[in-house]
């Protein structure tokens, strides 16, 4: 059976960091319920959408495999409904601005009162505490603050960030938070009481260069190296005759063989010989040549070029589902394969069903909540 069978998640997560965490839990078999409000939507419902899509691409990619409910958590009735659902759930995920959960009256202590075994995963930019905890930030802000930007860059250049289209800390935290939630779930299933997980993207970005901090603190100079990386004799990108960049890693033990293969030695260093040879060769031919010499080499792919390896060198990181491309999985489980079972929901798609099934509300009560605006049924994007 799927790994996280019988795990139910209330997913208040938005954009990437929160929503992708819920998506990965859903992929692993959890019943993940996306919680939105008549007055607040996941910004991915509108970001990057210039079409009439009911479910726009960014939202669709990170929210497939989830059910959806819409409750006005600012109303007492809405909060009561949410807490009644909490009683029958295992995990709550949130990545709001710090303080929002408390302002809504659903902070950890309240959730724990409703369910003494609940796991609250708070995925934040900079943690719950510390002088910068309330500072607004996005992923690349945290690259700067964590030291990762300082460690990234051309050898002769400035610090560098991954930028808006990667927003690296937002991506890695989803993998990490999924693991942390599963670790807490094991603890609760083993007899622990409620757990509040505090997951800071800034802290994680720093942890991901932990070896650089270890080097610096033990007296070693740490500086930006461009694409170079010990212990390799040479690692960099070279421009091919057809305008495509190639990435090449040469190990120390391969230098003599490669030098010989590149032609007569006129005293040029390996970098110059490789650069010259690449500049006169089409990329595919040069990759072939280098691989034949036992060298790691690959074209630097962009956009649709990445798709050329689908089926051969990768298969499930992105998937086609119901006629759309959605985010897939970073891993697979042989005995219980992760799969996409349902498309991303429209707003409030499953509100009535969830109130009845998990909250135990009667049809009359549900009708009343719909009528007074406490809950919201299925409706098209955006607001």
């Amino acid at each position, binding site marked *: 059976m799927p790994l996280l069978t019988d795990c139910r998640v209330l997913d208040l997560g938005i954009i990437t960091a929160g929503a992708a965490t819920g998506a990965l839990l859903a992929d692993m078999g959890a019943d993940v319920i996306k919680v939105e409000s008549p007055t607040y939507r996941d910004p991915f419902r509108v970001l990057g959408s210039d079409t009439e899509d009911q479910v726009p691409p960014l939202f669709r990619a990170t929210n497939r495999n989830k059910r959806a409910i819409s409750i006005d958590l600012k109303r007492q009735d809405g909060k009561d409904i949410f807490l009644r659902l909490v009683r029958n759930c295992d995990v709550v995920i949130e990545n709001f601005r710090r303080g929002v959960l408390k302002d809504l009256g659903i902070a950890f202590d309240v959730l724990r009162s409703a369910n003494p075994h609940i796991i609250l995963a708070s995925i934040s930019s900079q943690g719950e505490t510390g002088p910068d905890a309330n500072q607004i930030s996005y992923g690349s802000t945290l690259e700067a603050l964590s030291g990762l930007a300082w460690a990234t860059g051309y050898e002769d250049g400035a610090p560098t960030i991954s930028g808006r289209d990667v927003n690296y800390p937002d991506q890695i935290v989803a993998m990490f938070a999924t*693991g942390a939630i599963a670790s807490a779930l094991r603890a609760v299933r083993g007899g622990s009481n409620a757990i509040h997980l505090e997951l800071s993207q800034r802290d994680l970005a720093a942890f991901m260069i932990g070896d650089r901090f270890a080097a610096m*603190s033990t007296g070693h100079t740490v500086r930006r190296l461009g694409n170079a990386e010990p212990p390799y004799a040479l690692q960099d990108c070279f421009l091919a005759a057809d305008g495509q960049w190639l990435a090449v890693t040469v190990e120390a033990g391969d230098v003599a063989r490669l030098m010989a293969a590149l032609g007569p030695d006129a005293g040029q260093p390996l970098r110059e010989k490789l650069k010259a040879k690449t500049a006169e060769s089409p990329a595919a031919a040069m990759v072939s040549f280098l691989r034949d010499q036992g060298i790691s080499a690959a074209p630097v*792919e962009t956009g649709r070029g990445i798709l050329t390896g689908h089926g051969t060198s990768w298969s*499930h990181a992105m998937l086609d589902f119901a006629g759309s491309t959605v985010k897939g999985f970073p891993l697979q489980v042989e005995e219980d394969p992760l799969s996409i079972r349902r498309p991303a929901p429209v707003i409030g798609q499953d509100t009535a069903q969830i109130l009845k099934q998990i909250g135990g509300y009667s049809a009359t009560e549900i009708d009343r909540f719909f009528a007074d605006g406490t809950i919201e049924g299925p409706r098209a994007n955006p607001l």
Partner: protein
Amino acid sequence: MMAASPYSGLVVVEAISDEAADALVLAAGMAGRILADLGAKVIRIAGRDRGFDPALDIFLGAGKEHRTGADPRSISGDADAMICDAGLVAQMGRANCPPLCAILSMFGGTQFGAGPKASAFTISALGGLLAMVGEPDREPLKLGGQQEAFSLGLSVYSGLAAALAAKDQARRTIHASLLEAIIWLNWKALPLDAHTDALPSRAGREGEWQILRCKDGYAALVYQEPEWPRLKQALSDPRLEAEKFATRPSRLLHATELAEVIESCFGDMSRAQIQALAKYHRLPLGPVWSLEEALQDPHNLARDLFGPLKNAVPEAKAPKLPIGWTGGEIRHQTEENGNAIAD
């Protein structure tokens, strides 16, 4: 920061064969490091000397039991889980591996456990991540440190953690490849619908978000549409009121000019002043701290982020495992009445 031990009593073997790529050693090291910090007994079987920076061994080896040159078969029989590569599983036979096994590979698809020789760098190229960082008129640029391998380590940890949380605790085999992990985290670089024309690549100085010089170093210019009016207000520079900066599409067209204007504003400000300005105006600007500065940063000190590394020299410091874990008291079932008592 972290006091819980959900994996107390769990034995994990971390072993990557000598034939496997370096990145798999580092990825397995990261996954094992996290499990060790969460209470597992992680036995790391070191293979051949790969010439890694010693700091990698210090950081990834913390809290583990190290055995050099040991035969994994002699240890795996008593282990609950194993982090390994496809070559090692082929040698041992899956039946001789622990019930839970995470198998790492550079490639996925039909090339899982096979494929051409590759490094983390060349896999980053194939996954498009390399193309996303750096200046458009220069060579693509890798992220600092070991981001590709460590990301695979996070992926492996998530899979193992989910399997260890499963109610049935059945035998499971996790397949985790570096290329799948890179594409998964670089998902916005791929076309999400058929009519996507412009796909992103590295923008450098033409980027909406970028690093700019300031009085005493560098700061990250980061903002979304809602922050633009506050950014203008904070910088109080009349040049920002120009028509060409009025809308996002127009700002993107004139991104280099915009960066020059903002950089000239930053030129009179230190990073500390930019951070204060960002806090006051609720802007997501970020001063670029060096590693030394991050170590002494008041926020990091208040959070007790850095600590010594187990098994290392006392002066070695690195960020602790970034999981804050509160609550989680263990309930004891009393034999008499079955009531739960919290510690």
